[in-house]
């Protein structure tokens, strides 16, 4: 099967989108270049919905809206939603002229309506139509599921439509060993077509029960009748137990996966940031900003104080003051300004020590002589007129205005430089804090209003339910073993009694035939599983080792990968030591291992089917990245990859050669933070352009990462 074309209408972001895929066997790779939130996962879901219905949607479509979230109800509250997929199936027919290739083209259309009522919506059951397309027109096929299930078995949906992250659940420890094992086992058995043998086994069992019924009806021996009746009851219980075991397994796996999903939701919410912690950080940053603002205000005020300062007056007036002071100095030199002032002299007289250090003690004669001299000076000063007094005061009082008396660091220029430095430093801190605040607020906006505690509570409930189903499973399996043992004993007894009866010989022969057939079928089943499992395992190992190749980080550590008889995917290091894929493998190797398993499974099954893979090269770089891409192209019959620009980096030359089709999808809502130009589209939608992996046009041109990151932070 190969996908040719898909059209989407009003499927979430995909309001009106058409994709055509490469079907040339020489260039079988289609690249859909799209950044995050540009519809990649939505396309993956939409394609699966078209083929498999609501069961293929997340959580089986429950609470999963299909219509565009910003649907304008003025256009009607009943939203038509449809996905159309054209595909081609190649069959081989034996003829006398050998094998003849027979290509048939189909078109499947799944459509539904969602009716909007305020924030509520309701989805009508979807309708599906399948047409056989020929040169002359199209003819409907009923039921459509028969063709789909034949070409793309639902059990293998996740093998053909792979979400790079989700596919890791084949190996990740987020789900239990039994769930992983079950998934691998189911994938392998479905792809190998073992369902036919399973059906045959059930049929043989049913036949054996009917033969046993015939033994009961012989009625020749009461003991035989009793045993046959008991066996009949056991067989009825047997089927019931098998169903219960299967159901418990499924339920266990379902809750196991739910548990893994919810754990991922919790992890994602916590990775994006703890809402409460972010709120506290924002509050703290706001307080820091307030403090810095107060300091800025104080610095600004201090700056302003410079314009009323002595230093400004002194430095501005320096040449003028020099002139005025020189006039005073002249007077002083002429003796017109006394050398001292009355208050200073009076202060000395109140002391016993002169300013020169000599004694002024009234009891000392020499000191008394000094005191008299000082008193004379005071008297002389008092005699000076008012003008002289003013000039004297000015001469002695204006020392603070004399520039030569002032240290450099009290000059206005120095004081101003200090203020500038302080204001600049504070301004930088303020700017950084503002950026930090915006970044925190933007992080907070990005966090969905996740109730982490609520999720944890749900996780606990899921855990309890999963454990209950596990307990049920163990209980049923134990019971089954008991029934099996009892049945074997009863069968032996019944067969002995039948041998004693003449009429029993034929029945016994029939029973032996059913038992033999069952034996053969079971052995075939086990053998095919084992042999094919081994083939898948070997091929997976080859692909995986080729993919990680000479990766210096992992090459020396990883020796081998295999799927063991328990359907566990195991990785071995040196000396056959097992490696934990979660802990011992890096992200690139984990993805490579998962892709290897999917590609090997598809290859061994010889089913020609597309591999549609979302983000296959995430977390990869260098050799592993190009190697994974090359190997995936080689091993697929049709490969459709959803790649981001960073995944494409370093793979351009491979895509130049291998890509038969490259389409670019853009989400206009990324303008202006990530897109360079305004796409002029007001709705939430995805737009397509024909740019290949090396081109950019007005509608898809993106800002360089650093600018986009800064925009996001702001």
């Amino acid at each position, binding site marked *: 099967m190969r996908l040719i074309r898909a059209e989407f209408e009003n499927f979430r972001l995909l309001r009106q989108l058409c994709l055509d895929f490469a079907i040339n066997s020489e260039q079988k790779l289609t690249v859909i270049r799209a950044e995050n939130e540009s519809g990649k996962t939505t396309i993956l879901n939409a394609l699966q919905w078209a083929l498999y219905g609501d069961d293929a949607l997340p959580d089986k479509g429950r609470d999963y809206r299909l219509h565009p979230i910003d649907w304008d109800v003025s256009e009607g509250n009943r939203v038509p939603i449809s996905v159309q997929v054209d595909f081609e199936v190649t069959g081989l027919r034996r003829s006398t002229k050998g094998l003849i290739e027979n290509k048939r083209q189909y078109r499947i259309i799944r459509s539904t309506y969602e009716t909007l009522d305020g924030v509520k919506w309701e989805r009508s059951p979807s309708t599906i139509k399948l047409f056989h397309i020929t040169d002359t027109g199209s003819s409907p096929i009923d039921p459509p599921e028969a063709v789909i299930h034949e070409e793309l078995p639902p059990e293998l949906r996740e093998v053909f439509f792979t979400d790079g992250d989700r596919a890791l659940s084949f190996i990740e420890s987020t789900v239990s060993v039994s769930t992983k094992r079950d998934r691998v086992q189911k994938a392998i058995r479905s792809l190998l077509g073992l369902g036919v043998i399973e059906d045959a086994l059930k049929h043989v069992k049913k036949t054996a029960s009917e033969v046993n019924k015939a033994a009961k009806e012989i009625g020749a021996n009461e003991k035989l009748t009793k045993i046959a009746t008991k066996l009949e009851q056991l067989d009825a219980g047997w089927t019931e137990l098998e169903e219960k075991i299967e159901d418990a397994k499924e339920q266990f796996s379902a809750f196991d996966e739910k548990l893994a999903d919810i754990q991922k939701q919790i992890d994602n919410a916590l990775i994006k940031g703890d809402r409460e912690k972010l709120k506290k950080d924002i509050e703290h940053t706001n307080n820091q900003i307030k403090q810095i603002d107060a300091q800025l205000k104080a610095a600004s005020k201090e700056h302003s104080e410079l*314009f009323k300062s002595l230093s*400004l*007056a002194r*430095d*501005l007036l320096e040449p003028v003051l020099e002139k005025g002071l020189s006039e005073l100095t002249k007077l002083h030199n002429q003796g017109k300004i006394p050398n001292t002032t009355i208050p200073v002299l009076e202060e000395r007289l109140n002391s016993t020590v002169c300013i020169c250090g000599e004694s002024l003690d009234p009891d000392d004669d020499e000191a008394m002589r000094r005191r008299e001299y000082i008193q004379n000076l005071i008297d002389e000063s008092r005699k000076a007129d008012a003008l002289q007094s003013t000039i004297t005061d000015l001469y002695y*009082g204006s020392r603070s205005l004399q520039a030569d008396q002032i240290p450099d660091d009290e000059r206005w220029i120095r004081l101003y430089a200090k203020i*500038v430095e302080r204001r600049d430093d504070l301004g930088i801190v303020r700017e950084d804090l503002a950026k930090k605040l915006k970044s925190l607020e933007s992080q907070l906006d990005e966090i969905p209003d996740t109730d982490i505690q609520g999720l944890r509570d749900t996780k606990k409930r899921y855990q309890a339910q999963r454990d209950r189903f596990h307990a049920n499973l163990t209980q049923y399996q134990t019971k089954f073993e008991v029934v099996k043992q009892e049945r074997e004993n009863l069968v032996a007894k019944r067969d002995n009694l039948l041998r004693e009866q003449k009429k029993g010989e034929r029945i016994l022969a029939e029973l032996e035939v059913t038992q033999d057939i069952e034996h053969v079928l079971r052995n075939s089943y086990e053998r095919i599983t084992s042999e094919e499992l081994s083939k898948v395992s070997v091929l997976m190992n080859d692909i995986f080792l080729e993919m990680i190749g000479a990766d210096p980080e992992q090459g020396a550590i990883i020796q081998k990968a295999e799927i063991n008889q328990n359907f566990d995917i195991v990785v071995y290091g040196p000396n056959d030591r097992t490696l934990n894929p979660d802990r011992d493998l890096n992200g690139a190797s984990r993805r490579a291992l998962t892709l290897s398993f999917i590609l090997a499974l598809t290859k061994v099954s010889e089913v020609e089917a597309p591999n549609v893979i979302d983000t296959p090269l995430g977390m990869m770089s260098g050799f592993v990245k190009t190697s994974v891409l090359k190997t995936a192209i080689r091993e697929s019959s049709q490969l459709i990859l959803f790649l981001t620009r960073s995944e494409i980096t370093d793979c351009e030359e491979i895509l130049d050669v291998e890509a038969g089709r490259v389409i670019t999808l853009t989400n206009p809502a990324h303008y202006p933070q990530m897109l360079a130009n305004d796409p002029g589209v007001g709705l939430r939608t995805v737009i397509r352009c024909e740019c290949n992996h090396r081109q950019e046009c007005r509608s898809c041109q993106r800002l360089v990462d650093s600018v986009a990151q800064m925009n996001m932070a702001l």
Partner: protein
Amino acid sequence: MTQRYHNPFAGVDLVVPIEQRDAYNRYCQSGGRAVIDHSPFPRMVDFWFTAMCIAARKQLKSEDLSNRETFKFNEGSIFDRDSWRVQAIMLVAIAVTGSVEIVGAPRRMVSIANGLAAAGEPYLLEMLEDDDQEAIWNLSDAIETLLRDHHSNI
């Protein structure tokens, strides 16, 4: 600083030409302007004093305001707390007149200071406005340039 000196300007009016009143209001916080960076002077007397200093430094002629319409923005008593301003005005007056006797004529000294402030105001306005920054930065940079012309070693 303790006021050891008698303030001879206590009862003398500080005035500016009426046409300069707007500039005083615009660039002084006491004129009701709350944004410091746009109105760098804390009080009108600071604007007045700076204008006087600039005029004195530039050796501008003190304008005669006796026949001009003026507005009184304060009295000399405002110098009670800043005795150095009293001394500066006196020294400027001595420098302008070349006579120390001027210190005995407080009104004359204030008249010289008022005239110098009026003469310096256009230069001060130019300093406040002659750049595309906020007034406080324009003025600071202009003063720095003015001072560096004299103190190139600083």
